[in-house]
Every structure is written in structure tokens, then in C-alpha cells.
């Protein structure tokens, strides 16, 4: 039993006092959850995806619960960059929590502009480029719409363009809806990403058998929660074996024991997502639980856990 352990990590240039952030879109811009725990306890806070202009998002219903998880089709509703800078940033800076600004654009240039403007405004400590949002295409028009992150060449192009626009640590968030996660992950790394975020939601749908209507107005949505944890863990393991840059693991993390699994599979940091909906202070509990685990297992620092699966 150790008396002191060190939870600090360096995530592709972003120094975090502990390896826990929150998953984009599950924590807003922090204000809502600061009522339940001091959000400056987080290693970093990841914002909802920001776009250049505000977006109203998809029509409701946008949520449906599924076994041990949920489907969402929010459609990137967000306040837009200007309002983020004016209304959301001051609170986060006052809290002093490192900010991972998650961005979404409609072209490589839009991502680059977002990243540059965030850096110039001192409004982010790292950029997470969401190349994998499943909810911005109307499923009735764009059947099986492709994400940027499903095409390794596009991932390389987008990453390179954003890379050239900012010196901030750049994380690239990928979709699990691919045959081989290593291809887009390596493409992002080679194009200059400092870390890879895995995973975004898995595509799914649900139908009401009584009315025969889709449960989501968008028909298709993204599956999250404990239901996807084994899939996420496997993808983190796959990617971490081929990457040199660190991986941020997410997908159904509910408690410290889940986070530990992601470290053992190869993640350097973790993000708590949908679990915050059920337990608003879930991320704080995960931090405490990781610390307790490390003491109990005589692990001095996070590096002592990463890729630590015994085979």
C-alpha cells in the first residue's frame, strides 16, 4: 500500500494533474456540473463540439434509452465559437481547469480556422478535432453517410490542415464505425496529431414496434454508455499497439475499475461520458477510485498502468 501516488500525465503536450477528462457533448461547458462537484478537479474539461456558427441541431426526439446505454442524435447543437468565447470561456478560465476545445467543421479550412481562433483567443489548452460525428447528416437523405474518420486519406488531409493552423496539442477523435481502427489512427498520427481519442459513438437505431416509427427523429443515432465499453476497450487496445502518440480512451466508463481497464489496454488518459448523466459527479469518483487503486496496487504513476495488461 503506497501512501502517495502521482496521477499527473503529459497527454501529447497537455499536462494534466490527473488522467481524467469528460467526453465531449456529455458535460456541456461545465457550468451545469459544477453544481455537483468542483470541476477544477478534472485533469481537463472537454467542451461540447464547437462550430464556427451556432447550430440548432436535429429535431426531437433526440434520445432513446437502450439496454445499458442510450442512442443520441443531438446534431451538434452548440452555441458557436463567438458565444463560447464571450459567455462560456470566462467561467472555465475562472475555474482554472485545462480546456480541451472539441471542434467540428464542414471543411478542413473550417477546422483550421476554429483551431487558430481558439488559440489566438487563449481559449483552449488543447484541440480535439471531432472527425467522427454521426449526427450531422439527415439519415433519410444521406444513407449511411460517411464520416471523415472513415477514410484514412481524409483523416490525413484534415489533420495536416489543422496542424498547420495551431501549435496547441492536437487530438483527433475517431469513429468506431470502421473495419480497422489502426488505419485512420496511424493516418492522424503521421499527419501531426499529438493524441488519438477513441471512441465516438457507434451507429445504431431503435424502432417503436407499436407505431412502426423510428424512436429518433433522425432515425439513426450514436450509441453510448456501458453497452459499448467492450468495443471501445478493444479499439483502444488495437490502436495503442501501433501508435507512438498517446490514446484517450472513452466509451462506457462508469467507475474507476472501468478506467483502469482502458489504461491496461493502452490508454494514457480516459474520458467519462454518458455516466455523468446518471451520476453527475461520476468523473470525480473515477479520479478518486484511480488513486485508491494505485495505492492498493503499489503503482506510483499512470505510466505504471498503461499497456499493463498481463497476457
Amino acid at each position: 500500500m503506497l501512501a502517495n501516488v502521482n496521477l499527473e500525465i503529459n497527454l501529447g503536450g497537455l499536462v494534466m494533474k490527473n488522467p481524467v477528462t469528460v467526453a465531449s457533448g456529455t458535460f456541456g461547458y461545465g457550468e451545469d456540473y459544477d453544481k455537483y462537484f468542483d470541476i477544477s478537479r478534472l485533469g481537463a474539461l472537454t467542451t461540447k463540439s464547437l462550430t464556427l456558427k451556432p447550430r440548432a441541431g436535429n429535431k426531437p426526439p433526440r434520445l432513446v434509452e437502450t439496454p445499458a446505454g442510450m442512442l443520441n442524435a443531438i446534431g451538434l447543437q452548440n452555441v458557436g465559437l463567438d458565444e463560447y468565447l464571450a459567455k462560456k470561456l470566462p467561467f472555465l478560465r475562472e475555474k482554472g481547469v485545462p480546456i480541451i476545445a472539441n471542434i467540428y467543421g464542414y471543411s478542413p479550412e473550417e477546422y483550421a480556422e476554429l483551431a487558430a481562433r481558439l488559440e489566438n483567443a487563449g481559449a483552449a489548452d488543447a484541440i480535439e478535432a471531432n472527425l467522427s460525428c454521426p449526427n450531422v447528416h439527415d439519415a433519410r437523405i444521406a444513407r449511411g453517410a460517411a464520416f471523415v474518420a472513415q477514410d484514412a486519406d481524409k483523416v490525413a488531409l484534415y489533420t495536416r490542415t489543422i496542424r498547420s493552423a495551431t501549435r496547441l496539442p492536437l487530438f483527433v477523435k475517431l469513429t468506431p464505425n470502421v473495419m480497422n481502427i489502426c488505419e485512420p489512427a496511424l493516418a492522424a498520427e503521421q499527419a501531426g496529431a499529438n493524441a488519438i481519442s477513441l471512441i465516438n459513438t457507434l451507429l445504431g437505431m431503435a424502432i417503436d414496434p407499436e407505431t412502426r416509427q423510428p424512436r429518433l427523429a433522425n432515425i439513426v443515432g450514436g450509441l453510448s454508455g456501458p453497452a459499448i465499453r467492450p468495443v471501445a476497450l478493444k479499439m483502444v487496445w488495437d490502436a495503442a499497439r501501433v501508435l507512438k502518440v498517446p490514446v484517450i480512451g472513452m466509451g462506457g466508463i462508469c467507475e474507476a475499475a472501468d478506467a483502469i481497464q482502458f489504461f491496461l489496454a493502452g490508454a494514457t488518459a480516459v474520458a467519462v461520458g454518458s455516466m455523468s448523466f446518471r451520476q453527475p459527479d461520476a468523473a470525480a469518483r473515477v479520479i478518486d477510485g484511480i488513486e485508491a487503486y494505485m495505492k492498493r496496487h503499489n503503482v506510483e504513476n499512470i505510466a505504471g498502468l498503461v499497456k499493463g495488461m498481463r497476457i
Partner: protein
Amino acid sequence: MPTVSECAILAHHQVAPGHLRLAVQCPKIARDARPGQFAMIQVSDSLYPFLRRPMSFERIFEDGVTFLYKVEGEGTRLLARLTPAQTVSVQGPLGNGWPLECGFKRHILVAGGIGVAPFPALAEKIKQVCGKMPEVVLGARSRDYLLCENDFRRMGCTVYVATDDGTAGKKASATQVLAELAPGPGTRLYACGPMAMMAATSLIAEQLGIDCQVSLEAQMACGTGACLGCVVEARRELEGEKMVRVCADGPVFNAATIDWDRHRVDYDR
């Protein structure tokens, strides 16, 4: 400030077929709670069902609250199994409650089915703060499903009953009975029930040019405003933002701000 509290269950009874009243001890939540606000209740210790269930405060006491709910599906079925020996995790109070303004001449509460749940606390508050007795229109499927009728009468409210099958009160819809009450200038309506019934009530209010407040429902994940999952469409000409969050901007809205077109089905036919 909302909190998450592990609450002792004080009582848990069936009040009508498939409808239960749950009383919990939660001093922190009760102290801050206002009529029309709601809580997110964790229905299971396991991760399925994963999400909490939103429930309105039926009544608010000094150190506890009651909920009145209908067994709908898996979550409420599990909730219904809890006994007074157990505890339940309650997150709240959440959302904005009913607006309280004593200037109105008449306060008419219009409830459809389980939509009555947020009204006992409101009626009590209007009585206490404004010294005025609200009128209550209770709509139900049949006599067996009439909820809270005696509670309202005991408070001193005038209660008008409408049932689908005529086994109690008038054989009519709640909105038909409301129209017969001839709400005039200086009346505020408060409505909660099925979407179509609230849409019909808002139409009556619009035609008469009177104030109408509605408590909306939506699927919720976070209940605190972060996930943007619970939105409804606001009238474009009124709201800068097209989508409003039921949990954080509501659940009570001025009916005039909501885009009812999607919900105006032939409720009164």
C-alpha cells in the same frame, strides 16, 4: 442548488391501478424545491436501466417530497418494487417551477391523467401565497383513474371532473370542460398532460388572449441542461434560439413560446 441524495422511503402505495405515490425523506432537496420543478430518480442499482427517470414533485414538505407516477415501462416497474425499508437516489430540484403571480383573478389548473402530478404542490402554494383557491379541471380515463380529487377538495379547490367514459363527472375531455368554465381576462391557465391536450389548452388560451403555462415532457438523459437531448421547438418569431431544453429552460413554459403545430392533433374530436 440541486444535489444527489440517497433518500429513505417513507411510504410507497398504489393509489389507482398502475399508479403509485412515493414519499421520500430528503431535507436538502425539499428545502429548495418549488412547485413545477422535478427530480431525476435512479430506478436501479444495476446499469440497466441506465438513465434516471424524471418525476415532478407532487407535494413538498419540510423534510421530504412525494412523487405520483404511472407505471409505464421497465424503469417505473422497477421503481414500483421499492419498499420503505430501502433507499432511493434522487437528484434535484431541477428545472424552473410554475411562475407564481398573485395578480390573476382566476387560476385554473388543467390536468390530463398522470399530468396531475405537479399540481397539488402548486395549488397549495397559490392558496398559501395568494390566499386564493385555484380551480382544478381533472381529466381521466375513468372513475378508477381519477387522481388527487379529494386532496384538491380538502385544500378548498373547486374541482371539475371529466372522464372519457363518463363514469365520473362529465363525459368529456378536460379541455371541453375548461372551455365551459368561460375563462376570461385575468385568468391564468396551468396545463399538464398529454401533448395534444396541452396543445388544445394553449389554443383556447390563444383564442381568448389569456395567459397559459404548460409543463412539458421529453426524453431526458442529464436533466441538468448539458446533453441537449430534451429539446422542443420554440416558435421561431419569439425565440432567438429555435430549440429550448425542457429540463433547464422548462419544464414549465409559457404556452405562447412553443411551436404547437407538430402536436395539434384532433384531441377534441
